[in-house]
């Protein structure tokens, strides 16, 4: 048994070796400029800048990757109180602008994970490389010597919120949900585009007091999402955590118009979804 497997492995390895390791290897991607590589000192300077700004309370962590392009992830505690009162665009943009002006290069993609004082968290991506002109219009040229990874043609057939995550629409959902009776905080309100292992979803996580009837709150939040222009959505997922409720309740509504089992029921209750 083992002998034959060994023959198979050896023969196939020979095939692979003669054809260059990995006969079916993917074509090479764009070459990432060397820039400052891990950019340890530049990232440290950025962290220092951010921590001295009014928008940021602290920097939790940073992540640098230069495999396919120049990527920097920054997780920060933002100065805002909650999603209702904070100007999230301004807070996130202030972090992005500081990164734009930093010496980290190449910097093609910036990911900012921001958390407000009440625990509301959001991830905002800035495609500096792909939308360079529009960012230059806002914040001027990047520092002298900055490098860019060539932008590869993206043939993704994206629509609606798949393009930019519809942050503002999802914040609107969070603000409305915050006003529901018994809801003490909305800690997440984000759009997730479909992946190979999951459909597209609008996800709202909230904290509520023990007196709420979870099913009622969930249905009210689902209605807010339903009436919003967030789309395309296969699932509305609402997570409710109460102080003494144990593991949070997570309730999914399957609302794909073609096969989502909850779609027709919700449409009957709340009418057709807005075209968005």
């Amino acid at each position, binding site marked *: 048994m083992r002998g034959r497997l060994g023959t198979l492995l050896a023969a196939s390895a020979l095939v692979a070796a003669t054809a260059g390791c990995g006969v079916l290897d993917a074509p090479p991607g764009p070459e990432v400029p060397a820039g400052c590589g891990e950019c340890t000192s530049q990232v440290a300077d950025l962290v220092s800048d951010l921590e001295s700004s009014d928008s940021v309370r602290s920097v939790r962590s940073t992540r640098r990757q230069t495999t396919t392009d120049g990527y920097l992830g920054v997780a920060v505690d933002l100065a805002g109180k909650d999603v209702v009162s904070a100007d999230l665009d301004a807070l996130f943009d202030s972090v992005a602008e500081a990164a734009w002006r930093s010496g980290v290069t190449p910097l093609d993609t910036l990911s900012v994970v921001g958390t407000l004082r009440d625990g509301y968290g959001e991830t905002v991506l800035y495609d500096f490389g792909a939308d360079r002109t529009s960012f230059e219009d806002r914040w001027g040229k990047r520092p002298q010597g900055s490098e860019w990874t060539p932008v590869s043609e993206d043939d993704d057939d994206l629509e609606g919120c798949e393009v930019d995550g519809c942050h503002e629409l999802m914040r609107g959902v969070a603000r409305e949900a915050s006003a529901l009776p018994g809801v003490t905080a909305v800690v997440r309100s984000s759009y997730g585009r479909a992946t190979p292992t999951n459909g597209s979803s609008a996800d709202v996580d909230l904290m509520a007091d023990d007196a709420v009837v979870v099913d009622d709150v969930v249905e009210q939040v689902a209605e807010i999402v339903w009436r919003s222009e967030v789309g395309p959505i296969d699932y509305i997922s609402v997570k409710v955590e109460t102080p003494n409720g144990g593991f949070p309740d997570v309730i999914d509504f399957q609302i794909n118009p*073609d096969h989502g089992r909850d779609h027709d*029921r919700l449409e009957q209750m709340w009418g057709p979804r807005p075209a968005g």
Partner: protein
Amino acid sequence: MTSGTLPPIESVSGGSHGVEAGYEQMLALAERYERQAGDFVEMAGLGARIMANGDLLESAILSPISFGDAEVQVLDATTGANGLTVRAIGIEADALGVRAVIAAFKASDSLSRHAMEMLDNALGQLLLAGTVAALPALLAAGGISYAYYSTLSPEEQEALKAQLAEDLGQLLHDHPELAQHLINGGGGLLQNLVPGLGLLNPGDGPINQATTNDAARLLSLLLGNDTDYQVNPIADFTGGASNEVPGSLSDLMKQLDATNQIDQDDPRLHGAIQIQQVGDKYIVYIPGTDDMSPIPQDGEHARDMETNYQLIGGMDSAYGRGIQQAMLDAGLEGKDVMLVGHSQGGMVSTSLAADPEFARHFNVEHVVTAGSPTAQVTHLPDSTHAIHFENRGDAVPLLDGEDNPDQPNRTTVKFDEGSSDIGDNHGLGHYANGAAAADASTNGSIQDEITRMHDDGYLGSGTSGPLVSYQVTR
């Protein structure tokens, strides 16, 4: 994690109430029969020894008639026609019969599996031969179809494509066994495609012919069979995961879904796994494929098709090795663990649980998989208990080409929350609903698994220990 009613559970196989467990119980019964028969033989000998007792023989003179009567009774009860010795022989024969029946059942199971493998292999070979023979006709038909297709408006073309996908999805939902046999024929198909190479006769399957697993092995080798990995902690990051102890199978799926969503928020966090401490035990949440391209796109994703081919082929993978390293980095050496995986994550979980090298580092007590092909792992150690969830209409768990092995410590739960949309049927939301249906089920195999998870300390209530995140990449 559901709205409305729970999906129906279609079937439960394996586990403590499965066929193999039944065989084991029958074997235990045969052993009891044999022990009983042994006891009877011993007791029969005791009767003769009692009658030969010197004191008893001396007392016979006091009442010879009574003694004679007693002697006849005792010898009849022990060595007589209806005595213990004869009964012991009967019981021995029963035990032998039970063993023979089990052997026959097992041989029948094995024969059936061999026959099915042979048929599927032949089907794969015939598919290619048939396709070649019918090539001119197929080309003509294809040309006519394409000519017709090109006359349609873009909207009509989209509608036609959607209709074809819908029909295929419906076929898969209605006849999952058909898809399974077609996939199982993959070995034969590839065997004919590369006849000169002679690569696909490893003979490590149940038949001495190429199987799906061999085909997957070849594909992974053609991709370079890369197992290099990188592991990095994602500092101070829990995403949407809860810090509560999961209380049910459904909770495990919710927590896994939170891990799965990490790269929905930031695609660069692909390959993220999470480890939750629960008392002195650890639960590792392992999501599935990120890059579904048949040929991996950027050489960075560990959760790609190369890993899938490696896992189906029973080989090492970058993802599996990376998970092991992440667990070591998290300080889990020598600890009791539960692995919870979706799709490719379930494949790698099952594979790691059966890997002696992995077992040297961790004690895998439980495995929970959702939408994963796992039959390629033919045997899990007795100390590991697994529960596999499969949604009807989800093509992914069928990719192993056969049913999961029936082991007493391995339960497969099939439920039906499928539609005609193949992609959607694989979503974790459906698996959370299927798990909730299992939580509510009274099936013995399922309930025994849940009870064991509670007893082992993986399910419960209250605040859990720390939850840490790692990223596994190539």
